[in-house]
């Protein structure tokens, strides 16, 4: 239990994790991440990997939507650029995956700039509609440019190799994903404390005031678009190598929507929220699936309505969170932390 905040030097004051409890929680998290693959079966490892990829993508989207206040419906398109970029670099040019993934992320950042450039002059709804158009156009290009992407055929990406080991199992890929996801989270957490992050928040809260205090609004919006697309492309590229099959169905408008749902449910403008939201949106259908299968013997009709139940619950969760707890899971988590911070003497 803590009784106050006492720092005697700037170093400890500016640390990312300042309080003893925070340090304990971070330690527990790291231990948990290391121990998890030793205990989990492939099913849970698969889910964990999906969550890690989704977390990276959600942090990327959160930079744009949660921090800079620009709504994007083009998440799926940017993930497609990352996935096809990295996949094609590996398949066609034999680039090793540790080079092709960052390269694909860079390509996506450039693609993000191209889309962002015209629409960043506009605010709010218009950007949402412009990114929706970008989504449709990218989907069309991917499915129709047979020479480059193979059209509607799946692109098969060989399993990546690292230190002579083929990363073809969930257990092995887990390590790549966890390291990248942690690095992204750390990068984002520090970014938001920097000049750039503060400028983004200023633009989100009141763009005219931001430009009045000397923030280059257009430049920082572009930077947000590029950074966000970079991370989204990264998550798309990781997905390509993890799944080893790239098909356009994975990058439709539905994907854009489910990522928006992640950051809304998790909490806009928080990194922990990106993780919570990603976890919930990945786990929810899986849990409904398990539930449906366990009901299979008693109620055989359950299997036929399963997809609709998943879809309905997805919509319902979004609505309920927006109506009841607009700040999302991150806020709930904060409530729990605040409760235990002074427990048992919370007067």
């Amino acid at each position, binding site marked *: 239990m803590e009784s106050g905040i006492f720092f005697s030097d700037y170093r400890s004051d500016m640390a990312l994790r300042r309080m003893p409890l925070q340090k304990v929680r971070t330690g527990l998290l790291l231990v948990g991440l290391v121990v998890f693959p030793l205990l989990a079966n492939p099913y849970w490892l698969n889910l964990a990997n999906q969550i890690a990829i989704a977390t990276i993508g959600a942090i990327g989207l959160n930079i744009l939507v949660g921090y800079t206040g620009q709504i994007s419906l083009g998440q799926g398109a940017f993930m497609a650029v990352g996935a096809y970029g990295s996949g094609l670099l590996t398949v066609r040019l034999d680039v090793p995956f540790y080079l092709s993934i960052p390269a694909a992320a860079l390509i996506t950042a450039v693609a993000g700039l191209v889309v962002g450039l015209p629409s960043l002059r506009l605010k*709010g709804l218009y950007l949402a509609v*412009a990114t*929706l158009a970008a989504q449709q*156009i990218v989907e069309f290009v991917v499915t129709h440019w047979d020479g480059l992407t193979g059209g509607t055929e799946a692109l098969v990406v060989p399993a990546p190799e690292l230190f002579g080991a083929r990363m073809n199992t969930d257990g092995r890929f887990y390590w790549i994903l966890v390291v990248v996801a942690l690095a992204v989270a750390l990068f984002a957490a520090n970014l938001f404390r920097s000049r750039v992050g503060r400028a983004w928040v200023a633009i989100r809260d009141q763009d005219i005031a931001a430009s009045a205090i000397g923030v280059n609004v257009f430049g920082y919006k572009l930077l947000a678009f590029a950074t966000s697309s970079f991370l989204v492309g990264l998550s798309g590229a990781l997905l390509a190598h993890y799944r080893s099959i790239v098909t356009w169905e994975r990058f439709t408008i539905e994907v854009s929507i489910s990522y928006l749902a992640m950051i809304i449910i998790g909490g806009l403008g928080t990194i922990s929220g990106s993780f919570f939201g990603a976890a919930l949106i990945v786990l929810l259908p899986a849990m409904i699936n398990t539930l449906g299968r366990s009901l299979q013997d008693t109620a055989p009709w359950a299997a036929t309505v399963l997809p609709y139940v998943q879809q309905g619950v*997805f919509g319902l969760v979004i609505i309920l969170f927006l109506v009841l707890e607009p700040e999302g899971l991150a806020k709930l988590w904060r409530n729990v932390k605040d409760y235990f911070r002074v427990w048992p003497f919370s007067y």
Partner: protein
Amino acid sequence: MDSDVFLQLTVSGLSNGMVYALVAVGFVVIFKASDVINFAQGEFLLFGAYLAFAFIAQFGLPWSLGVLATLLTAAMIGLIVERLVLRPLIGEPVISMIMVTIGLSSLLRAVVNGIWGVRPKAFPNFIPSGEVEFLGAIVGFDRLLVIAIAAILLTVLTLFFRYTRDGIAMRAIADDQQAALSMGISIKRVLAVAWAMAAITAAVAGIMLANTVGVSHDIIFIGLRVFPVVILGGLDSVPGAIVGGGVIGLLESYTAGYTTSGLELIVPYIVLILVLMVRPYGLFGKEIIERV
């Protein structure tokens, strides 16, 4: 090219365009009343089509009663949605509003699929279908009827916004919510009316689609195809929705008719981006875009 083909493409493009226009008007009504873009408009359309299917084909009501029942049910759904989902969010930021309609679209879609399944259904043609010779080309009578019905409905709506109390109140609220409130306008009432109207126009479009192309899950995608229409016409303009619907419908029809690459799928979106770059408030929209 044949002038026959051209005329046929024109008529089918216009009739598709008028369906777009009807769906777009639903967007416009809601946007005018509350500054919300409703991503669930495609699902309202779907609901309308399936409700008509249920009343006419499954319950065997005569088509006049069936259409009436469809419209009433659609209005009820609009009211319920507004009361349960939108009203708690009055005054929340734009992204919450957008997201809640996205959640709504997922929920409504699940309900429709859960009740009726995803397979296309055969729908009894209740609008007399025959072929009419029109300016020297053979065109389906139902297509012409779609254009006529849409034209009537859109005229009524234009008049509604110009002359009725609720219509004027909607414009007032869209202009400045605070000021409208202080002048004694009930936002709740106006929003309820707006959502009911949006649901009804979508249901009309749904019925017409059901009659011309059949009832299927693909109707949903029309909801997304309407964004170029509203951006082209202007988000807050009923005449804009009509003109935008016509232009986009024709454009799609000609692209589909004269090219073979499936380009008609994205031509509207390319138009959308061009419009956003050149004239973001659309052809008839109000010029209040703030550039920063």
